[in-house]
């Protein structure tokens, strides 16, 4: 699969993120600083399915979370559909930029269907009947139509993650960010979530996936990005990156993973 259009949907320029360095009240000196991201430039085009891979602590999750400002970048700019992702535009940007978390983060006090309907209703994206119909449709699509009225606690991890994906889709986003969506799952449930994500990729929605599932990256994505030491080290189609890794660190990483 190649990107079918060349409309730029995300533009990242000179993104850095430094943790620490804040002098807390009462502390003698500022915390030690840690540069997690050291200048990232990246363009994402509509329809891209991008996998971000790299060793633990390389900053790939931080990078993903910077994109929708769950982490505040230290410097640099992010443009989403031509709009600067800053404090003033953040709520509008997030409505079009879904996120799926490692630990699902479903709302435990609401039923599955209410989980899907909550944000569209509060933001009045559509009328109530349309939102309800869309929620039913999405639940059927993730194969959990029969679970509409149960609470998330009674579902397995794989089912919860599929609901979380449906919740992101209920907003009709242009991009979905996946932050290690299968890392918290029991091995036998990884498949069902990956399968759903694969189906999703075929619909042409733009996806950014932080993952350790090399098989998924190789099979589904059209770009694989290797991040290490806070920088993008390689950005290639999967065939190229997996069969012919250039960077020595990537070679070492892949030899450990595969």
């Amino acid at each position: 699969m190649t990107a079918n259009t060349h409309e730029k949907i995300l533009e990242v320029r000179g993104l850095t993120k430094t943790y620490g360095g804040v002098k807390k009240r009462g502390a003698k000196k500022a915390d030690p600083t840690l540069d997690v991201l050291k200048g990232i430039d990246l363009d994402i085009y509509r329809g891209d399915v991008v996998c971000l891979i790299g060793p633990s602590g390389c900053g790939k999750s931080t990078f993903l979370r910077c994109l929708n400002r769950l982490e505040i970048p230290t410097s640099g700019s992010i443009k989403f559909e031509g709009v600067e992702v800053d404090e003033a535009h953040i709520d509008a940007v997030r409505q079009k930029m879904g996120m799926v978390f490692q630990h699902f983060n479903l709302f435990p006090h609401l039923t599955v269907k209410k989980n899907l309907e909550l944000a569209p209703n509060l933001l009045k994206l559509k009328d109530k009947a349309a939102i309800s119909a869309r929620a039913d449709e999405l639940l059927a699509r993730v194969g959990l139509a029969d679970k509409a009225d149960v609470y998330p606690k009674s579902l397995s991890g794989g089912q919860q993650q599929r609901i979380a994906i449906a919740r992101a889709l209920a907003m009709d986003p242009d991009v979905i960010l996946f932050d290690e969506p299968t890392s918290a799952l029991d091995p036998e449930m990884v498949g069902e979530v990956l399968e759903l994500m694969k189906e999703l990729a075929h619909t042409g929605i733009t996806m950014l996936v932080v993952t350790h599932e090399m098989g998924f990256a190789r099979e589904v994505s059209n770009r694989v990005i290797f991040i290490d030491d806070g920088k993008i080290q390689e950005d290639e189609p999967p065939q190229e990156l997996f069969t012919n890794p250039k960077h020595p660190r990537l070679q070492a990483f892949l030899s450990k993973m595969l």
Partner: protein
Amino acid sequence: MAAQYELLKELLNSGTKLSFGQDFFFKFYQAFILKDRWLQYISGVGTTLLVTALALALGVVLGSMVAMVRVTHDQQRPGHKNPVLGFFNAVCQVYTTIIRGTPMMVQLLIMSMVIFANSRNFTMVGALTLGINSGAYVSEIIRGGLMAVDPGQMEAGRSLGLNYMTTMVVIIIPQAIRAVLPALGNEFIVLLKDTSLITTIGGKELLYAAQGIMNRTYEAMFPLLGVAGIYLILVMLFTWLLSKFERRLAQSDR
């Protein structure tokens, strides 16, 4: 019964020593039945419940506001503190420090004899003081509940494009309330019993009624034991109601 009482009274006046049973009946009758004194206890219970309800409402409103201010203040990013919020946070901290750092009895006396020295409505002054006092404790309970909610819930709400306030109100607070309900129930019961303190400033609640009867009959045991029994029954009743309510709320979790 009235005739029996009159008979015993005459015996007592003539210097006869009453048997244990006669003595018991005489004092019991005097404490509860003579001159329809039980009505005084009933109206005392009414006032006690009213003061508790008012104080609880005030305490929960004050406590929620203080908790919200403090949590919102603490959750700001370092280096991006809002000065207005910082001011309110300081006010809230002074409030909880003073209220939790001084005895309730002293607070009651200050409110009735210094701040509202001209007011004769001691019951309402008492309810106000109890509410302000309770608010400081409730704020800490609610703050704990808000902070105990998984931070991922706030992230999930925000990542759907909801703003901070909306996420707080529809996602964080409902979960926090469920978590703190047992502690709030406990606070409610403490409050119910603490209403007896307003007797000292002249609030006309249950213990006040008992004291009035004690002063008239020179007999302390029955009024005091009666009052203790009434408090116990009230507390047991509310404990039972609260546990039922909790079980109702917990149903959605499974």
